[in-house]
């Protein structure tokens, strides 16, 4: 009996150790991977891109949007972004300015060209769809370490590429997700795939990031991102046509004056 107890205790001990040790290691390795991913993408300063969004409903009917985006890297905080809408044509000239932050809600403004009005937006909740697409505002905001808790899960081969699979749990209670699973390429730390789980922990969306190109000899950008919503059958392609770096943009190109001037 004693022996059995001892064995039982050992089994439980092993079991605990078996769970406890990797969990501790996973969080540390998860953060380490995320930090490396972030570090490798630092120093790009500013970028401009033209993007086409193709929205597809469950029946396969498509509609497209054309947008131009300007981005400014901000050290020790979230990045700044300015998005100008070109199509559909009824929203042309509308512009969206976002100052993303790590420790507090983003600052967001919308420029409405018909009224010549800059309207500030309450941005606490970023889980809403961007332009009716399958991308939520939070999916498009800059990657910051403070926004998530990380957990390394496993190594996995994805289309022949060795990846780390990292679980990210949003720190923001207003996030639309309970967690995301991220497939990070082990060589360049490019994100190849993300699974988004809703608040009820069911799989909501899968994002595939493809056609990676390297810029300035260092920074990788996917030219094609496909977001598939598994619950509605809808999907959105985000196709980037032309990225330019180092245009010398400053904070002055990302304030409400610049927003009013944007065309």
């Amino acid at each position: 009996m004693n022996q059995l107890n001892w064995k039982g205790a050992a089994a439980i001990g092993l079991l605990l150790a078996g769970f406890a040790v990797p969990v501790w290691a996973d969080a540390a390795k998860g953060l380490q991977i995320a930090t490396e991913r972030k570090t490798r993408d630092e120093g790009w300063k500013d970028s401009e891109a033209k993007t086409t969004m193709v929205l597809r409903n469950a029946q396969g009917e498509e509609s497209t949007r054309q947008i131009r985006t300007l981005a400014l890297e901000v050290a020790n905080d979230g990045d700044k972004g300015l998005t100008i809408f070109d199509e559909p044509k009824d929203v042309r000239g509308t512009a969206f300015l976002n100052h993303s932050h790590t420790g507090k809600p983003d600052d967001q403004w919308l420029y409405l060209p018909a009224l010549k009005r800059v309207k500030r937006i309450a941005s606490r909740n970023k889980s809403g769809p961007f332009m009716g697409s399958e991308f939520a505002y939070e999916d498009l905001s800059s990657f910051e370490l403070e926004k998530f808790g990380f957990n390394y899960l496993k190594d996995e081969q994805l289309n022949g590429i060795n990846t780390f699979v990292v679980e990210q749990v949003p720190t923001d209670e207003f996030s639309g997700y309970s967690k995301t699973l991220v497939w990070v390429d082990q060589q360049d730390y490019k994100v190849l795939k993300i699974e988004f789980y809703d608040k009820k922990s069911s799989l909501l969306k899968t994002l595939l990031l493809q056609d990676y190109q390297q810029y300035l000899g260092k920074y990788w950008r996917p030219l094609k991102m496909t977001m598939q919503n598994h619950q509605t059958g809808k999907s959105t392609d985000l196709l980037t046509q032309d990225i330019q770096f180092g245009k010398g943009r400053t904070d002055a190109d990302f304030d409400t004056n610049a927003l009013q001037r944007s065309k």
Partner: protein
Amino acid sequence: MRLTQLLPLLCSGLFWPLAAAELGPVSAKDTLWSLAKAARGDAPYSMYQVIIALQQKNPRAFIGNNVHHVQNGAVLQIPTTAEIAAVDPELARQKVEADEQLWRQLQRHGPRAQGGSSSATNRLIAGQQKFVSPFPQVQTGLSATPATPATPATPATPATPAIVAAAPAVPTAPLPPLKTPAAQPAIVQSQGRSTTTSAPHWTDRLQTNSTLGLESRLFAKQGLQQQARVQNSVNFLQEWYWQAEDESHSWTFSPYLRWDQRDAERHLIDIRQAFWLTLGQGWELKLGIDQVFWGVTESQHLVDIVNQTDFVDNIDGESKLGQPMLQFNLFGDFGNLQTFVLPYFRQRTLPGVNGRLRLPLIVEQDKAVFASDDKQQHIDWALRYAKQIDQLDIGLSYFQGTSREPGYIPTAQGTLLPYYAQIKQWGLDAQWIVDSWIWKLETIRRSDGQSHYRALTGGFEYSMVGVWDSDFDLGWLMEYQYDSRGMNATAIGQRDLFIGTRLAWNDAAGTELLFGIAQDLDDSGSRSGLLEASTRYNNNVRLRLDAWFFQTRSPEQQIWWLRQDDYLQLGIDYYF
């Protein structure tokens, strides 16, 4: 076709094969090399790959198999991403560079005197079909072929330049000589008009947008003065915008036209915008006609005073006439300071005899009375200082000059004359963002020399995202409206409560709806309400539904005169 018109076509086709599958017709002055130079920057594939893929996809469009000689008038099939990716970048580079070298030699030594014709060009193209392409088809594996020499081994001769130079590129397939006299003029024609580094044309930075709107107002009842129940109108807005390449200055010109079926006072030719804007570090200067919006609230706009209201367009007061101005902005860490000099005054648009939503007496708009002897030439000026302090936005403004809002002088003939006083107005607007709440306040103090009054609008907007387990956004608006003049107020809201809801479908059609009611707090029987809904029909067309209603039993109310004017408006806006 200009180079930069080609570029977006090219790019969209390359990276999104679902887009336009062809581009052109190409004009003789364009070369693919010039396209490549302009697009090379950070394009995802090297432009060498793009060029070779284009050439392989369109062998007939290239003269002498030289990528720099694009056939005049050719329509190019755009290669797919896969086809571009299949091109070996290094081999592509060598081929393009070799062709360029040849092209330069042709420029130095080639015959220049002869002209060309398109039929000659066509014959040359037909002749080229016999030759083996220096590049095998993608499917056969480009990287398997020996590298193309970077420079032609044999110097080109003036007589048959394209052929001789092209030969070394394919050592295994010697090219038959092409001696047709037609060949030379065709090449010369292409050379003469092409440049490798053509500068962008100024019109490339010109944006042109047009909007045509059709509106039909359907009134529930005949007007108090027996006006018709149906009123149709057409409007047209044209916008031109040009920005200098260094973004240091820009021009904007935006005329607006409106024609109304019933009310001659709704006919309008207006310049909404016509200004020159220049900016430097921390400052901005604008000269010309523009529209400026101040304020934060939704149910009415007290602080907003720079522009005159185009009242006949929409009684919500959000439609504005162009205002001539000199505007100077200073901005920095201290905030944003705007200074305006407004040298000319625009009268408010008011409905005419046959118009709806009007006062019972006829307003003689061409006999307006001005407090200032300078009349419309009185120089008004305005200031606004605004600062964002974390989640709080504050704006403080001052205006001195001609009141945008008319008073009315009754005449012996039973008509009214608009009266524009000289006023001084202080304004304060503030908003405070707390999570999903935005608290808003606008307040003014206006004096005309004899008396003064205060008015205020304050309340909140609360936004809910993804309500009812859907993508819907639901917003709630509540604003209290106060005017110290009480029933003598010229505005509708003297002590009113506005409650509204905003619903956004977040669908592909961008469907949205706003519904609101302003209830008079002193007179339970008086209220007005509005509905604004719209949805996208296609990429160019938006459909709109607007409605207003006015309810009162009290002749003292401003809206007493509008009690028959409830209406529904159907609108189609066509954007092109």
